[in-house]
């Protein structure tokens, strides 16, 4: 409330008027006129300039600096200054002055000083124009900066939600196909898988990246996923999860591990023919939660590109949340591919 009072143009122009009135009063007083006469003279003269300045300021909001507008400002300020000094002041001032004790020579003083008053008024208007333009320029800059940061935030949110939604639909369709096969032969197992799939899907919806979850919760979600995948791939897929108590309490963005494990399963299963084990291990390393996912691969036939194996979206997600490009690391050693993510703990 208070700050908006200070920001209002009326307040600013009142201050402007008061300031120049003081200056003007002192100036007129130097010509040996009483404080009352000096003040009245300065206040009225300055009221003219302030009103003209206010109009100019308001008009300039819609007139950005340009050669054409510069000429407009010159013309406007000269015209207004001329009208106010030559047409209004000589007739207006005596009307007020007659209510106070005015010396006889005042009228000739007014007449003699009229041209000086015109020049001062005109200069003041030009000054108002310069300040207004600077003011509006700064205001626009600030708005641009704010708009830019708002836009970036929006884009980041949109990108994050899009990256999160990259749950492979194939997983869903293949799972449904498995259930379809189980319905007749093993109805209990079919029912169990439907339950697991539902729990898993429920865990994937309505997640916000900024709402961190504990590793414990993330592992629970991951286990559901692994159980479903094990029904699909049968004996070929095994998994092991190791996480100590300390790391289980750590927090991380939701659904971050699932795509990494999905990736590990995909390359583990499609790159080899036998049984595979996906190992997931979590530990604390100086205030970071470190999770590694290992899968076997065939070094002779697969060519990991870049960060390797479609992990780019996870790397991007981590960057958008933590502004750090080094949180996802991959390593291919012998025939084991390791994906490691570091989650800073605050």
């Amino acid at each position: 409330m208070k700050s908006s009072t200070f920001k209002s143009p009326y307040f600013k122009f009142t201050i402007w008027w008061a300031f120049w009135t003081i200056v003007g009063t002192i100036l007129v007083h130097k010509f040996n006129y009483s404080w009352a006469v000096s003040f009245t003279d300065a206040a009225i003269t300055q009221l003219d300039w302030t009103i003209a300045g206010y109009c100019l300021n308001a008009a300039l909001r819609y007139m950005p600096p340009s050669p054409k507008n510069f000429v407009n400002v010159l013309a406007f300020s000269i015209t207004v200054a001329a009208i106010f000094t030559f047409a209004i002041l000589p007739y207006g001032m005596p009307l007020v002055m007659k209510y106070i004790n005015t010396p006889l020579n005042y009228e000739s003083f007014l007449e003699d000083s009229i041209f000086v008053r015109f020049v001062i008024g005109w200069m003041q208007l030009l000054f108002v124009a310069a300040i207004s333009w600077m003011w509006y320029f700064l205001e626009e800059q600030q708005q641009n900066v704010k708009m830019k940061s708002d836009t970036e935030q929006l884009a980041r949110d949109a990108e994050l939600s899009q990256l999160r939604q990259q749950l492979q639909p194939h997983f869903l369709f293949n799972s449904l196909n498995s259930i379809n096969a189980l319905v007749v032969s093993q109805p209990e197992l079919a029912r169990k898988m439907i339950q697991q799939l539902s729990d898993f899907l429920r865990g994937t919806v309505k997640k916000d990246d900024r709402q961190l979850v504990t590793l414990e919760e993330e592992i629970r979600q991951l286990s559901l996923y692994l159980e479903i995948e094990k029904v699909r791939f049968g004996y070929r897929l095994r998994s092991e999860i190791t996480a100590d108590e300390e790391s289980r309490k750590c927090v991380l963005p939701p659904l971050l591990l699932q795509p990494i494990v999905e990736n590990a399963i995909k390359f583990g299963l499609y790159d080899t023919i036998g049984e595979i084990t996906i190992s997931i291990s979590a530990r604390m390393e100086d205030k970071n939660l470190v999770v590694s996912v290992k899968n076997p691969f065939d070094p002779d036939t697969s060519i990991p590109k870049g960060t390797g194996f479609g992990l780019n979206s996870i790397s991007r997600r981590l960057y958008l949340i933590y502004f750090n490009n080094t949180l996802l690391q991959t390593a291919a050693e012998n025939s084991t591919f390791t994906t490691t993510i570091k989650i800073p703990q605050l």
Partner: protein
Amino acid sequence: MIKVILIDDEPLARSMVKEYLQSYPDISIVQECDNGFDGVKAITQHKPDLIFLDIQMPKINGFEMLELLDTPPSVIFTTAFDEYAIKAFEAHAIDYLLKPFAKERFDKAMQKWLAGRQSATPVVTQSFIESVAQPEERNRVVVKKGSNIVIIPVHTIHYLEAFDDYVKIHTKDGFYLKKKTMSYFEKTLDPKEFVRIHRSYLLNVQELTRIEPLEKDNHIVLLKSGVRIPLSATGYSKLKEILGI
């Protein structure tokens, strides 16, 4: 008796097809395979009339497996990936079943195939499969050498050479033959890595050590392996453009 082979890496997916096939008494499933390697062996051995084929499978995918067969049988694709449907039909698949599929949909595919059998049998030929080329997946080439299946990552290829109806794929371990055309490889390999330097040669630019003049206007390239291969005039200008000289 109609011989059928099921090729899918998910056991439950195979059991689904098996269950649906129970209503076709004269069909016998001669083998089930959970990868493309076994698939090639089983098809060569049993010469089935029809196969049910998944696309995403260990080691080699369904399309790569078909490439390895001299006379591929009729194919019905079964997959959860709808993005391959067009390629599958280009490969003259009988049908393309999207998992999970209903018995009615499955029966429709079977009727289509049975009706086709009475008239001319649609066969998958190499040229059909060629149009199925997946440029984005061409980071490897699958070939058969004797009874072995070899997966060649493209970066290990030194150069390719036209050889009658085949293409010789030269690597550090010698060459492999693949029944394809040079233009097929030219189209599917990364043009920044492989340059057609001659009507009969496609060169991996990584393997190049130097270009040597040979008579006037004629050049020859020397590879890291010490092999020299001819360079045509257009090949020379293409190579210069790629290398930025």
